[in-house]
């Protein structure tokens, strides 16, 4: 059975490297979803989520999130910080961060170094159009709206939020007691791999 099911919409990836990784995963028949979950990682004193993290991919068969970064060093540092925070708050969440160098090496391994150069930084923002991605453009608006909805719902107060008296960091974010676990709010969006829902995947 092909991993690519006819008519399955592909998401509008924010970066060409994400589109390339999706193609690699499709090739090796590893199922994925794109930005399915948003993890709150910072709260105001009022309990509003002020910072969150949405890993790029979730691989359900491996129970693994994958985050790509091909950004400038300053932005990589920010992402590293968010990743550390996520791991502190959600220690059961398995996540792998692919740095620009990692991804470049991966493309080199697959003999696609020219593509690696195209994917660096801001020049990689636009997904190069390919025939197999045409359906992406048609579904792009819907996928973007769905993603926006995920972020929006993350602003509602989370159960178990800090109450008055909880220390607040200098930037105004609530400091979470490491012993106080946040329940993971999962927002499943219809941005799945062409392999479809678990019960549809043939082995």
């Amino acid at each position, binding site marked *: 059975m092909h991993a690519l099911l006819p008519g399955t919409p592909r998401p509008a990836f924010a970066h060409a490297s994400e589109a390339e990784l999706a193609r690699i995963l499709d090739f*090796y028949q590893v199922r994925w979803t794109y930005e399915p979950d948003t993890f709150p990682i910072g709260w105001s004193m009022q309990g509003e989520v002020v910072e969150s993290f949405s890993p790029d991919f979730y691989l359900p068969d*491996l129970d693994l999130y994958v985050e790509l970064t091909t950004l400038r060093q300053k932005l990589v540092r920010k992402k590293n910080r968010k990743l550390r925070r996520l791991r502190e708050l959600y220690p059961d969440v398995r996540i792998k961060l692919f740095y620009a160098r990692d991804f470049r090496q991966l493309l*080199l391994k697959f003999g696609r170094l020219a593509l690696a150069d195209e994917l660096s930084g801001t020049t990689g923002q636009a997904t190069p159009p390919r025939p*197999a991605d045409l359906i992406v453009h048609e579904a792009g608006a819907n996928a973007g709206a769905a993603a926006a909805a995920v972020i929006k719902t993350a602003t509602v107060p989370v159960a178990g939020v800090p109450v008055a008296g909880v220390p607040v960091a200098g930037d105004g974010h609530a400091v979470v007691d490491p012993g106080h676990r946040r329940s993971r709010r999962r927002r499943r969006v219809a941005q799945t791999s062409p392999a479809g829902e678990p019960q549809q995947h043939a082995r």
Partner: protein
Amino acid sequence: MTRTADLQADIGEVLLSEEAIAARVAELGRQIAADYAGRNLTLVSVLKGSLPFMADLMRQIPLPLRIDLMEVSSYGGTATESSGLVRIMKDLSASIADEDVLLVEDIIDTGLTLNYLVRYLRGKSPASLRICTLLDKPARRLVDIPVDYQGFEIPDQFVVGYGLDYGERYRNLRFVGVLRPEVYSAGE
């Protein structure tokens, strides 16, 4: 005509010498022979990179064993554009049902190829399936599959030699080396 000496000029650093590889392969052979004594062992080699490793390893296992070869398409090759999916380019020549199979790999990197192969081979009902790799590069691992026999764990560098290639070259080097970045930067 490019000669081996010219190929060696493209190597920035020898990571594993011919002697180190030979010594480790011999150790692995002894281990495997001890573990598989009295069993129906089939070594399955994944072409093309594992060819030298397979040839040396099997001669270090003094057991009655079978060998078989497989080849799987790699992302980025011609198979990518034609079908978009990994496929078996050369399948096993004999059944492995009820055999104790040892999958022999040259290198495990992301684990994507191995993941696919393990799923495929399990479908053929072997009595057991274990993994032996010469090189393990865990830095970019996506799929965690237990490796039963590991030659060397290596850092995140692009290595060639002893079966491993870049652009189908360098496989015949007797050692494992790190390719100079200028070689693959200029090559595209």
